[in-house]
C-alpha cells in the first residue's frame, strides 16, 4: 500500500511537524467560547427537549418494571433452575464493560501521553459513570430483598453478621463500589477548572452561583495547577489497575464456579479485552451523533474516530483469540463436559446466538476495520459500533445461558426464556443512560476546556519568548 508522504498529509501541522489533533486556526478564546457556549447558551436546541422526552419515556419502563418487581418478586423474570442467572447478570456485565472504555481513555491514554484523547475523555468518563449507574441497578434489584442491599457491606450490626470474604460476589461489591467512587471523583476533579471558566463566563446569576459552587473557587493559580496535575496523574495511575481489576473480578463470578464453560483461566484477560472493545464501540455510538449535532468536527476530528477504530481492531483481535482458545481448550482438556458444552453452544438449541455473536464481533468488524477508508467513514463506524455492542451483549448471553441450561445431569436440563419484564428492565436502562447523558450534554462541559487549550500551538513558549526559556535555564 502506498503511503502518503508526510509533507502532503493535510493532518500534519506545518509548524510543528506533528499530527494536528484539532483543526487549525483556533485560539484560547475561540475554543473556550465554543465549548462553554454549548452549556451557557440560552437557546436550548429543540432536539434536546425531544430527546430528553423520549429518553425519559423509555426510562419510565424501568421504573414500572422495577415497581412490579418489588411488588411481586423475582418470579416475574425468566430466571429459574437450571438457568438461575439471566438478563440481570448479562446486562450488568454488558453495562459495566461499556463503562471501561471511559476509564481507559481518561486514565491509560493520559499516562501514555496520547493527547488526542483530550477531546473525548470528558464524555467518555461521563459514559462510564452512567453505565455504572445502569450496571449497578441489576445486582441490587436481583437481590430478592433489595431493601436489605446494605447487608452487602461490612458494617457493625446487632445481628453480628459479616460478609463472607471468600466469595467472588463479595469481591464484586468492593470492586464495583470502588470503581463507581473513583470514576466520579476523577470526573469531578477533571471538571473543576472548567467550572471556573463557566462561572466566569456565565451571564445568568443562577448559573454563576451554581458553577461557582462547583468550581470551589478555582482561580488557576500555578501552585494549584502543579498539585492538580500531580493528583490527576495519580488518579490516572490508580484508575488503570482498577479498571483491569474490576472486570477481572467480574469474570471471577464465573471462573471460580465449577461449571463447564465458565471454569477457565482465560476469563479475566478475555473479559477485560471484551469490555474495552464494547466500550470503544459505545464511545463511537455517542461521539458520532454529538460531533454532528453540536458541530464539533474541529475538536473531535476524523483522527479520533480512526484511532478509536484501531483500538477496537486491537481489542477485537484479543477477543477473537479468547473465542478460539475456548474452543481449543474444550477439545484439549479432554473433558467430556467441556466438549459437550462447546458442542451445545455451537450447535445446540441456542446455537444461533453463538453464530450471531461470531458474525457481529469477529466476522464483520475484524475484516473491515483494516481499511482506513472505512475507519474514517462516519456512517459505517456508527453502524459498526451498534453491531459490536449487540455482539458483546450476545457474548454475555451465550456465556451465561448456554453454560447453565445444559447442566451435568440431563434430568435437570431446561431452557431460558426472558419475560417481558426482563426486556422492559433492559430497555429501560437504555432510557436511563440516554436521559442522564442528555442532561450531562446540556449542563456540563462535554469537552475539557483547559486540556484543549493545552493542545493549541500558542502554548509553545517559543515565538518572541525564546529568551524567557533561556532566562529560566540560566538561573537554575
Amino acid at each position, binding site marked *: 500500500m502506498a503511503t502518503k508522504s508526510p509533507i502532503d498529509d493535510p493532518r500534519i501541522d506545518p509548524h510543528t511537524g506533528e499530527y494536528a489533533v484539532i483543526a487549525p486556526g483556533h485560539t484560547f478564546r475561540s475554543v473556550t467560547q465554543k465549548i462553554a457556549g454549548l452549556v451557557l447558551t440560552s437557546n436550548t436546541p429543540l432536539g434536546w427537549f425531544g430527546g430528553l422526552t423520549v429518553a425519559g419515556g423509555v426510562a419510565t419502563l424501568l421504573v414500572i418494571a422495577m415497581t412490579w418487581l418489588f411488588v411481586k418478586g423475582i418470579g416475574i423474570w425468566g430466571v429459574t433452575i437450571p438457568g438461575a442467572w439471566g438478563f440481570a447478570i448479562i446486562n450488568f456485565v454488558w453495562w459495566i464493560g461499556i463503562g471501561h472504555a471511559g476509564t481507559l481513555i481518561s486514565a491509560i491514554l493520559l499516562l501514555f501521553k496520547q493527547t488526542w484523547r483530550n477531546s473525548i475523555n470528558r464524555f467518555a468518563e461521563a459514559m462510564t459513570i452512567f453505565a455504572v449507574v445502569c450496571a449497578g441497578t441489576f445486582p441490587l434489584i436481583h437481590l430478592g430483598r433489595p431493601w436489605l442491599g446494605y447487608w452487602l457491606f461490612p458494617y457493625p450490626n446487632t445481628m453480628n453478621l459479616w460478609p463472607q470474604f471468600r466469595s467472588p460476589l463479595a469481591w464484586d461489591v468492593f470492586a464495583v463500589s470502588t470503581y463507581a467512587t473513583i470514576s466520579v471523583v476523577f470526573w469531578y476533579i477533571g471538571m473543576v477548572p472548567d467550572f471556573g471558566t463557566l462561572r466566569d463566563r456565565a451571564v445568568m446569576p443562577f448559573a454563576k452561583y451554581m458553577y461557582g459552587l462547583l468550581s470551589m473557587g478555582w482561580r488557576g493559580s*500555578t501552585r494549584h495547577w502543579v498539585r492538580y496535575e500531580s493528583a490527576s496523574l495519580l488518579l490516572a495511575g490508580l*484508575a488503570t489497575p482498577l479498571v483491569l481489576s474490576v472486570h477481572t473480578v467480574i469474570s471471577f463470578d464465573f471462573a471460580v464456579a465449577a461449571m463447564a464453560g465458565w471454569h477457565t483461566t482465560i476469563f479475566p484477560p478475555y473479559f477485560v479485552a471484551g469490555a474495552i472493545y464494547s466500550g470503544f464501540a459505545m464511545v463511537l455510538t455517542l461521539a458520532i451523533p454529538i460531533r454532528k449535532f453540536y458541530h464539533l468536527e474541529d475538536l473531535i476530528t476524523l483522527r479520533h474516530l480512526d484511532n478509536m477504530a484501531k483500538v477496537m481492531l486491537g481489542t477485537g483481535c484479543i477477543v477473537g483469540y479468547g473465542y478460539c482458545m475456548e474452543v481449543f481448550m474444550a477439545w484439549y482438556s479432554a473433558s467430556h463436559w467441556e466438549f459437550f458444552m462447546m458442542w451445545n453452544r455451537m450447535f445446540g438449541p441456542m446455537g444461533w446466538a453463538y453464530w450471531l455473536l461470531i458474525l457481529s464481533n469477529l466476522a464483520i468488524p475484524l475484516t473491515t476495520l483494516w481499511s482506513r477508508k472505512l475507519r474514517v467513514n462516519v456512517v459505517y463506524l456508527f453502524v459498526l459500533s451498534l453491531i459490536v455492542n449487540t455482539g458483546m451483549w450476545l457474548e454475555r448471553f451465550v456465556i451465561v445461558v448456554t453454560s447453565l441450561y445444559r447442566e451435568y445431569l440431563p434430568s435437570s436440563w431446561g431452557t431460558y426464556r426472558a419475560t417481558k419484564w426482563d426486556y422492559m428492565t433492559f430497555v429501560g436502562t437504555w432510557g436511563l443512560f440516554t436521559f442522564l447523558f442528555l442532561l450531562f450534554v446540556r449542563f456540563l462541559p462535554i469537552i475539557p476546556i483547559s486540556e484543549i487549550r493545552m493542545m493549541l500551538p500558542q502554548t509553545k513558549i517559543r515565538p518572541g519568548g525564546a529568551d524567557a*526559556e533561556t532566562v529560566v535555564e540560566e538561573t537554575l
Partner: protein
Amino acid sequence: MTPREGIYGLLAEFNTPAELVRATEQAHRAGFRRMECYTPYPVEEAAVALRFHKTSVPLVCLLGGVMGMLTAFLMETWITLWSYPMNIAGRPLFSWPAFIIPAYEWTILFAGLSAAFGMLALNGLPQLYHPLFNAPNFRDGASTDKFFLCLEATDPRFSILETRALLEQLAPVSVVEVDL
C-alpha cells in the same frame, strides 16, 4: 495609611505564556517571593520560574493507599477469624489469598480519595471568595486566555510605587491594584 492595609497586591496581565514566564523570572530575580501566576491551563515553565516543584500530593496518596490496604486486610482477617468464623467447604479460616482482592480495591479507593481530597486541602479549596476576583480584568481572563502575575503586598519588598514600576517594565497589558 500603609498600602498593606487595603491592598492584596498588584496584578499584571500578559497576552502570552512566554511573557508571563519572563516577567515571573524577573520578579524573582528582583527578590520577590510572595507572588503567584494565574493561567488558564497548567504552564510548567511558570512553576519553574516560581521555584515551585515539590508537592506533597504523592505522599498523601501513598499514605492513603497503605491505610486502605491495611484497613481492608485486617478487617477481613478479624471478621473471618474471630468475629464471624464460618466453615466454607473446609477451607482454612485464614484464607488470605481471597482477602487480597478486597484489600486491593480498598488500596485504590483510599489512595484515590486521598489524592483528590489531599490536593484540594493543600490548595486551600474550596475557597469561594478570593481578593483577586475583585480585579476587573481577572475573571474574563484567567480562566480564558490571559496570563497573570500577582505580586502580593505581604512581600517585604512590596511598595506600591516601586513594584508598579517594576511590573510596567515587563511590558504587561495592564497593571491593576487588587483590593482586599
